[in-house]
Protein backbone atom coordinates (compact mmCIF):
# COMPACT_ATOMS: atom_id res chain seq x y z
CA UNK A 1 0.00 0.00 0.00
CA UNK A 2 1.88 3.13 -1.17
CA UNK A 3 1.51 6.23 0.97
CA UNK A 4 0.32 9.56 -0.24
CA UNK A 5 2.75 11.06 -2.80
CA UNK A 6 3.90 14.68 -2.52
CA UNK A 7 1.06 16.96 -3.54
CA UNK A 8 1.47 19.72 -6.12
CA UNK A 9 -0.65 22.66 -7.26
CA UNK A 10 -2.74 20.48 -9.57
CA UNK A 11 -3.76 18.22 -6.65
CA UNK A 12 -4.62 21.16 -4.42
CA UNK A 13 -6.71 22.81 -7.15
CA UNK A 14 -8.63 19.60 -7.75
CA UNK A 15 -9.32 19.20 -4.03
CA UNK A 16 -10.31 22.87 -3.75
CA UNK A 17 -12.80 22.48 -6.54
CA UNK A 18 -14.16 19.09 -5.39
CA UNK A 19 -14.61 20.18 -1.78
CA UNK A 20 -16.11 23.54 -2.75
CA UNK A 21 -18.62 21.78 -4.96
CA UNK A 22 -19.50 19.40 -2.13
CA UNK A 23 -20.00 22.29 0.28
CA UNK A 24 -22.14 24.18 -2.24
CA UNK A 25 -24.37 21.27 -3.21
CA UNK A 26 -24.80 19.82 0.28
CA UNK A 27 -24.78 23.16 2.17
CA UNK A 28 -22.35 21.54 4.61
CA UNK A 29 -20.17 23.68 6.90
CA UNK A 30 -16.72 22.11 6.61
CA UNK A 31 -15.02 19.40 4.55
CA UNK A 32 -11.67 17.82 5.37
CA UNK A 33 -9.54 15.32 3.53
CA UNK A 34 -7.40 13.54 6.11
CA UNK A 35 -4.75 10.86 6.08
CA UNK A 36 -5.80 7.77 8.07
CA UNK A 37 -2.68 8.33 10.16
CA UNK A 38 -4.27 11.58 11.40
CA UNK A 39 -2.84 14.60 9.51
CA UNK A 40 -5.18 16.92 7.61
CA UNK A 41 -4.34 16.80 3.89
CA UNK A 42 -6.74 19.52 2.78
CA UNK A 43 -9.68 21.49 4.11
CA UNK A 44 -12.36 23.88 2.87
CA UNK A 45 -15.27 25.70 4.46
CA UNK A 46 -15.48 27.21 7.93
CA UNK A 47 -11.92 26.20 8.79
CA UNK A 48 -11.38 28.96 11.35
CA UNK A 49 -14.33 27.86 13.49
CA UNK A 50 -12.90 24.47 14.38
CA UNK A 51 -9.69 22.88 15.65
CA UNK A 52 -9.32 20.86 12.47
CA UNK A 53 -5.92 19.39 13.42
CA UNK A 54 -7.39 17.70 16.48
CA UNK A 55 -10.59 16.77 14.63
CA UNK A 56 -8.43 15.07 11.98
CA UNK A 57 -6.47 13.03 14.54
CA UNK A 58 -9.60 11.97 16.42
CA UNK A 59 -11.58 11.21 13.25
CA UNK A 60 -8.78 9.02 11.89
CA UNK A 61 -8.65 7.10 15.18
CA UNK A 62 -12.41 6.79 15.37
CA UNK A 63 -12.85 5.59 11.79
CA UNK A 64 -9.99 3.09 11.95
CA UNK A 65 -11.22 1.76 15.32
CA UNK A 66 -14.73 1.24 13.96
CA UNK A 67 -13.29 -0.37 10.85
CA UNK A 68 -11.32 -2.76 13.09
CA UNK A 69 -14.55 -3.67 14.92
CA UNK A 70 -16.31 -4.27 11.60
CA UNK A 71 -13.50 -6.58 10.47
CA UNK A 72 -13.93 -8.61 13.65
CA UNK A 73 -17.59 -8.99 12.77
CA UNK A 74 -16.59 -10.35 9.39
CA UNK A 75 -17.74 -7.17 7.66
CA UNK A 76 -15.47 -6.44 4.72
CA UNK A 77 -17.34 -3.47 3.28
CA UNK A 78 -17.04 -0.45 5.53
CA UNK A 79 -17.49 2.86 3.76
CA UNK A 80 -18.71 5.49 6.21
CA UNK A 81 -19.71 6.57 9.71
CA UNK A 82 -22.52 9.02 10.40
CA UNK A 83 -22.91 10.77 13.76
CA UNK A 84 -26.09 12.77 14.24
CA UNK A 85 -25.74 15.74 16.58
CA UNK A 86 -28.18 18.27 18.02
CA UNK A 87 -26.60 21.16 16.12
CA UNK A 88 -23.91 19.69 13.89
CA UNK A 89 -23.59 16.24 12.41
CA UNK A 90 -20.57 14.37 11.13
CA UNK A 91 -19.99 12.11 8.19
CA UNK A 92 -16.74 10.16 7.75
CA UNK A 93 -16.42 8.60 4.28
CA UNK A 94 -13.67 6.31 3.10
CA UNK A 95 -11.70 7.72 0.15
CA UNK A 96 -9.10 4.96 -0.32
CA UNK A 97 -6.63 2.91 1.75
CA UNK A 98 -4.90 6.09 2.92
CA UNK A 99 -7.47 8.83 3.18
CA UNK A 100 -10.85 9.84 4.59
CA UNK A 101 -13.34 12.58 3.80
CA UNK A 102 -14.86 14.28 6.85
CA UNK A 103 -17.96 16.45 6.40
CA UNK A 104 -19.41 18.59 9.18
CA UNK A 105 -22.91 19.87 8.51
CA UNK A 106 -25.92 21.38 10.24
CA UNK A 107 -28.06 18.73 11.91
CA UNK A 108 -31.21 19.83 10.09
CA UNK A 109 -29.69 18.99 6.69
CA UNK A 110 -30.41 15.68 5.04
CA UNK A 111 -27.69 13.16 5.93
CA UNK A 112 -28.63 11.11 2.86
CA UNK A 113 -27.98 14.05 0.55
CA UNK A 114 -24.65 14.83 2.22
CA UNK A 115 -23.66 11.19 1.92
CA UNK A 116 -24.63 11.13 -1.77
CA UNK A 117 -22.60 14.23 -2.65
CA UNK A 118 -19.66 13.08 -0.47
CA UNK A 119 -19.45 9.80 -2.39
CA UNK A 120 -18.94 11.68 -5.66
CA UNK A 121 -16.34 13.95 -4.05
CA UNK A 122 -14.47 10.91 -2.71
CA UNK A 123 -14.40 9.41 -6.21
CA UNK A 124 -12.94 12.63 -7.66
CA UNK A 125 -10.23 12.71 -5.00
CA UNK A 126 -9.36 9.03 -5.49
CA UNK A 127 -8.84 9.67 -9.19
CA UNK A 128 -6.55 12.61 -8.44
CA UNK A 129 -4.53 10.60 -5.90
CA UNK A 130 -4.12 7.86 -8.50
CA UNK A 131 -2.84 10.43 -10.99
CA UNK A 132 -0.45 11.74 -8.33
CA UNK A 133 0.87 8.22 -7.66
CA UNK A 134 1.55 7.68 -11.35
CA UNK A 135 3.18 11.08 -11.62
CA UNK A 136 5.73 10.74 -8.83
CA UNK A 137 5.78 7.52 -6.86
CA UNK A 138 8.01 7.83 -3.83
CA UNK A 139 9.18 11.34 -4.60
CA UNK A 140 10.26 13.26 -1.54
CA UNK A 141 10.88 16.80 -0.37
CA UNK A 142 14.37 17.97 -1.32
CA UNK A 143 16.24 18.91 1.84
CA UNK A 144 19.68 18.17 0.44
CA UNK A 145 22.07 20.81 1.68
CA UNK A 146 20.07 21.50 4.82
CA UNK A 147 22.41 21.93 7.78
CA UNK A 148 21.30 19.38 10.35
CA UNK A 149 23.20 21.14 13.10
CA UNK A 150 20.68 23.94 12.69
CA UNK A 151 17.78 21.64 13.42
CA UNK A 152 19.25 19.98 16.52
CA UNK A 153 17.25 22.42 18.60
CA UNK A 154 13.99 22.58 16.67
CA UNK A 155 12.21 22.24 20.01
CA UNK A 156 13.71 24.29 22.81
CA UNK A 157 12.82 24.06 26.45
CA UNK A 158 11.61 26.98 28.50
CA UNK A 159 14.46 27.40 31.01
CA UNK A 160 12.29 29.30 33.47
CA UNK A 161 10.25 26.21 34.36
Amino acid at each position, binding site marked *: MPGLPPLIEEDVQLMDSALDELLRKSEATLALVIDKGG*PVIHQRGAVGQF*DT*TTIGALAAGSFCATQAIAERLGETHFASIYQQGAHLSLLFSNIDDNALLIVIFKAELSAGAVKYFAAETARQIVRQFQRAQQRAPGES*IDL*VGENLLDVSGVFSKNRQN
Partner: protein
Amino acid sequence: MAIINQATKELQVKIVYYGPGKGGKTTNLEQVHGNVQGVQEKGKLVSLATSSDRTLFFDFLPIEAMAIKGYKTKFQLYTVPGQVIYNTTRQLVLRGVDGIVFVADSQYDKMALNVESFQNLEDNLKTLKLNFAEIPYVLQYNKRDLPNVAPVEYLDYLLNNREVQVPAFPAVACRCEGVFESLNMITRLLLNKFINEGSRKAT
Protein backbone atom coordinates in the same frame (compact mmCIF):
# COMPACT_ATOMS: atom_id res chain seq x y z
CA MET B 1 4.13 8.41 5.87
CA ALA B 2 4.87 12.11 6.01
CA ILE B 3 2.46 14.38 4.19
CA ILE B 4 4.32 16.65 1.79
CA ASN B 5 2.40 19.42 0.12
CA GLN B 6 4.62 21.24 -2.35
CA ALA B 7 1.83 23.63 -3.32
CA THR B 8 1.18 24.93 0.20
CA LYS B 9 4.79 24.29 1.30
CA GLU B 10 3.84 22.09 4.23
CA LEU B 11 5.51 19.05 5.71
CA GLN B 12 3.64 16.99 8.32
CA VAL B 13 5.27 14.20 10.26
CA LYS B 14 3.98 11.78 12.87
CA ILE B 15 6.06 10.75 15.87
CA VAL B 16 4.81 7.98 18.15
CA TYR B 17 5.94 7.45 21.75
CA TYR B 18 5.93 3.71 22.38
CA GLY B 19 6.83 1.60 25.41
CA PRO B 20 5.52 -0.38 28.37
CA GLY B 21 2.62 0.81 30.52
CA LYS B 22 3.38 3.50 33.12
CA GLY B 23 6.77 4.08 31.52
CA GLY B 24 6.31 7.85 31.07
CA LYS B 25 5.05 8.28 27.49
CA THR B 26 2.20 10.60 28.45
CA THR B 27 4.53 12.49 30.81
CA ASN B 28 6.84 13.16 27.85
CA LEU B 29 4.02 14.82 25.92
CA GLU B 30 2.88 16.77 28.99
CA GLN B 31 6.40 18.09 29.47
CA VAL B 32 6.76 19.06 25.81
CA HIS B 33 3.38 20.78 25.96
CA GLY B 34 4.25 22.59 29.18
CA ASN B 35 7.80 23.63 28.37
CA VAL B 36 8.26 24.03 24.65
CA GLN B 37 9.13 27.51 23.43
CA GLY B 38 10.05 29.19 20.19
CA VAL B 39 7.62 27.20 18.06
CA GLN B 40 5.20 28.70 15.57
CA GLU B 41 2.13 27.15 17.09
CA LYS B 42 1.34 24.69 19.87
CA GLY B 43 -2.00 22.87 19.87
CA LYS B 44 -3.94 21.45 22.78
CA LEU B 45 -2.80 18.21 24.36
CA VAL B 46 -5.66 15.78 23.83
CA SER B 47 -5.75 12.70 26.05
CA LEU B 48 -8.16 9.84 25.57
CA ALA B 49 -7.72 8.24 28.98
CA THR B 50 -9.58 5.87 31.31
CA SER B 51 -11.19 7.07 34.54
CA SER B 52 -8.00 6.00 36.33
CA ASP B 53 -5.95 8.29 34.06
CA ARG B 54 -4.36 5.51 32.02
CA THR B 55 -4.10 6.05 28.27
CA LEU B 56 -7.06 4.34 26.61
CA PHE B 57 -6.54 5.23 22.95
CA PHE B 58 -3.84 7.86 22.55
CA ASP B 59 -2.53 11.25 23.64
CA PHE B 60 -2.08 13.75 20.86
CA LEU B 61 -0.07 16.96 20.68
CA PRO B 62 0.26 18.97 17.45
CA ILE B 63 3.15 21.43 17.19
CA GLU B 64 4.19 23.62 14.29
CA ALA B 65 7.94 24.18 14.40
CA MET B 66 10.15 26.54 12.49
CA ALA B 67 10.12 26.54 8.70
CA ILE B 68 12.71 24.33 7.05
CA LYS B 69 13.71 25.35 3.54
CA GLY B 70 10.53 27.39 3.38
CA TYR B 71 8.35 24.46 4.41
CA LYS B 72 6.02 24.81 7.38
CA THR B 73 6.87 21.78 9.51
CA LYS B 74 4.01 20.34 11.51
CA PHE B 75 4.72 17.61 14.03
CA GLN B 76 2.03 15.35 15.39
CA LEU B 77 3.12 13.64 18.60
CA TYR B 78 1.17 10.58 19.72
CA THR B 79 1.46 8.10 22.56
CA VAL B 80 0.13 4.55 22.48
CA PRO B 81 -1.59 2.86 25.41
CA GLY B 82 1.09 0.77 27.08
CA GLN B 83 -1.16 -1.82 28.68
CA VAL B 84 -0.84 -5.23 27.02
CA ILE B 85 -4.58 -5.59 26.34
CA TYR B 86 -4.69 -2.57 24.03
CA ASN B 87 -2.64 -4.02 21.21
CA THR B 88 -5.17 -3.35 18.46
CA THR B 89 -5.23 0.27 19.55
CA ARG B 90 -1.43 0.46 19.36
CA GLN B 91 -1.59 -0.81 15.79
CA LEU B 92 -4.11 1.92 14.90
CA VAL B 93 -1.92 4.64 16.39
CA LEU B 94 1.16 3.34 14.56
CA ARG B 95 -0.56 3.80 11.24
CA GLY B 96 1.35 6.38 9.16
CA VAL B 97 4.18 6.66 11.70
CA ASP B 98 7.33 8.46 10.57
CA GLY B 99 9.48 8.24 13.71
CA ILE B 100 9.38 6.53 17.11
CA VAL B 101 10.58 7.40 20.62
CA PHE B 102 10.70 4.18 22.63
CA VAL B 103 10.30 5.09 26.30
CA ALA B 104 11.74 2.34 28.50
CA ASP B 105 11.31 2.09 32.25
CA SER B 106 14.80 1.90 33.82
CA GLN B 107 13.73 -0.03 36.92
CA TYR B 108 15.21 -3.52 37.15
CA ASP B 109 11.84 -5.17 37.68
CA LYS B 110 10.51 -3.62 34.45
CA MET B 111 13.15 -5.10 32.14
CA ALA B 112 10.94 -7.96 30.96
CA LEU B 113 8.16 -5.48 30.18
CA ASN B 114 10.57 -3.29 28.21
CA VAL B 115 11.74 -6.22 26.11
CA GLU B 116 8.18 -7.44 25.60
CA SER B 117 7.03 -3.99 24.51
CA PHE B 118 9.95 -3.60 22.10
CA GLN B 119 9.19 -7.00 20.58
CA ASN B 120 5.53 -5.97 20.38
CA LEU B 121 6.55 -2.82 18.48
CA GLU B 122 8.47 -4.89 15.94
CA ASP B 123 5.54 -7.30 15.58
CA ASN B 124 3.01 -4.49 15.11
CA LEU B 125 5.13 -2.78 12.47
CA LYS B 126 5.35 -6.09 10.61
CA THR B 127 1.57 -6.46 10.83
CA LEU B 128 1.24 -3.00 9.28
CA LYS B 129 3.75 -4.02 6.58
CA LEU B 130 6.17 -1.36 7.78
CA ASN B 131 9.89 -2.05 7.78
CA PHE B 132 11.38 -1.24 11.20
CA ALA B 133 14.80 -0.76 9.59
CA GLU B 134 13.43 2.15 7.58
CA ILE B 135 11.74 3.96 10.47
CA PRO B 136 13.97 6.27 12.53
CA TYR B 137 13.73 5.73 16.27
CA VAL B 138 15.44 6.69 19.48
CA LEU B 139 15.49 5.07 22.90
CA GLN B 140 14.75 6.93 26.10
CA TYR B 141 15.72 5.28 29.41
CA ASN B 142 13.28 6.95 31.73
CA LYS B 143 12.96 7.12 35.53
CA ARG B 144 16.70 7.41 36.14
CA ASP B 145 15.92 9.15 39.45
CA LEU B 146 14.53 5.99 41.06
CA PRO B 147 16.73 3.89 43.36
CA ASN B 148 16.37 0.48 41.70
CA VAL B 149 17.40 1.34 38.15
CA ALA B 150 19.48 -0.85 35.88
CA PRO B 151 22.71 0.58 34.45
CA VAL B 152 22.37 2.26 31.06
CA GLU B 153 24.77 -0.37 29.66
CA TYR B 154 22.33 -3.12 30.64
CA LEU B 155 19.42 -1.30 28.95
CA ASP B 156 21.62 -0.89 25.88
CA TYR B 157 22.39 -4.62 25.99
CA LEU B 158 18.68 -5.47 26.09
CA LEU B 159 17.24 -2.87 23.71
CA ASN B 160 20.08 -1.48 21.65
CA ASN B 161 22.16 -4.56 20.97
CA ARG B 162 22.86 -4.17 17.27
CA GLU B 163 25.72 -3.38 14.95
CA VAL B 164 24.79 0.28 14.59
CA GLN B 165 23.25 1.51 17.81
CA VAL B 166 20.44 4.06 17.79
CA PRO B 167 20.69 7.18 19.98
CA ALA B 168 19.66 6.54 23.58
CA PHE B 169 18.95 9.11 26.30
CA PRO B 170 18.75 8.74 30.07
CA ALA B 171 15.72 10.67 31.27
CA VAL B 172 13.63 11.77 34.20
CA ALA B 173 10.56 12.76 32.22
CA CYS B 174 8.65 14.10 35.23
CA ARG B 175 11.45 16.67 35.66
CA CYS B 176 11.68 17.24 31.89
CA GLU B 177 15.20 15.77 31.78
CA GLY B 178 15.94 13.95 28.52
CA VAL B 179 12.55 14.83 27.05
CA PHE B 180 13.65 17.52 24.60
CA GLU B 181 16.91 15.70 23.85
CA SER B 182 14.89 12.67 22.67
CA LEU B 183 12.44 14.77 20.67
CA ASN B 184 15.12 16.82 18.95
CA MET B 185 17.10 13.71 18.06
CA ILE B 186 14.14 11.93 16.47
CA THR B 187 13.40 15.15 14.56
CA ARG B 188 16.98 15.22 13.34
CA LEU B 189 16.87 11.57 12.28
CA LEU B 190 13.61 12.16 10.43
CA LEU B 191 14.97 15.12 8.50
CA ASN B 192 18.15 13.16 7.81
CA LYS B 193 15.99 10.46 6.27
CA PHE B 194 14.38 13.02 3.97
CA ILE B 195 17.80 14.32 2.97
CA ASN B 196 19.04 10.81 2.18
CA GLU B 197 15.93 10.13 0.10
CA GLY B 198 16.48 13.46 -1.66
CA SER B 199 20.10 12.48 -2.38
CA ARG B 200 19.06 9.14 -3.84
CA LYS B 201 16.55 10.97 -6.02
CA ALA B 202 19.23 13.38 -7.21
CA THR B 203 21.70 10.65 -8.24
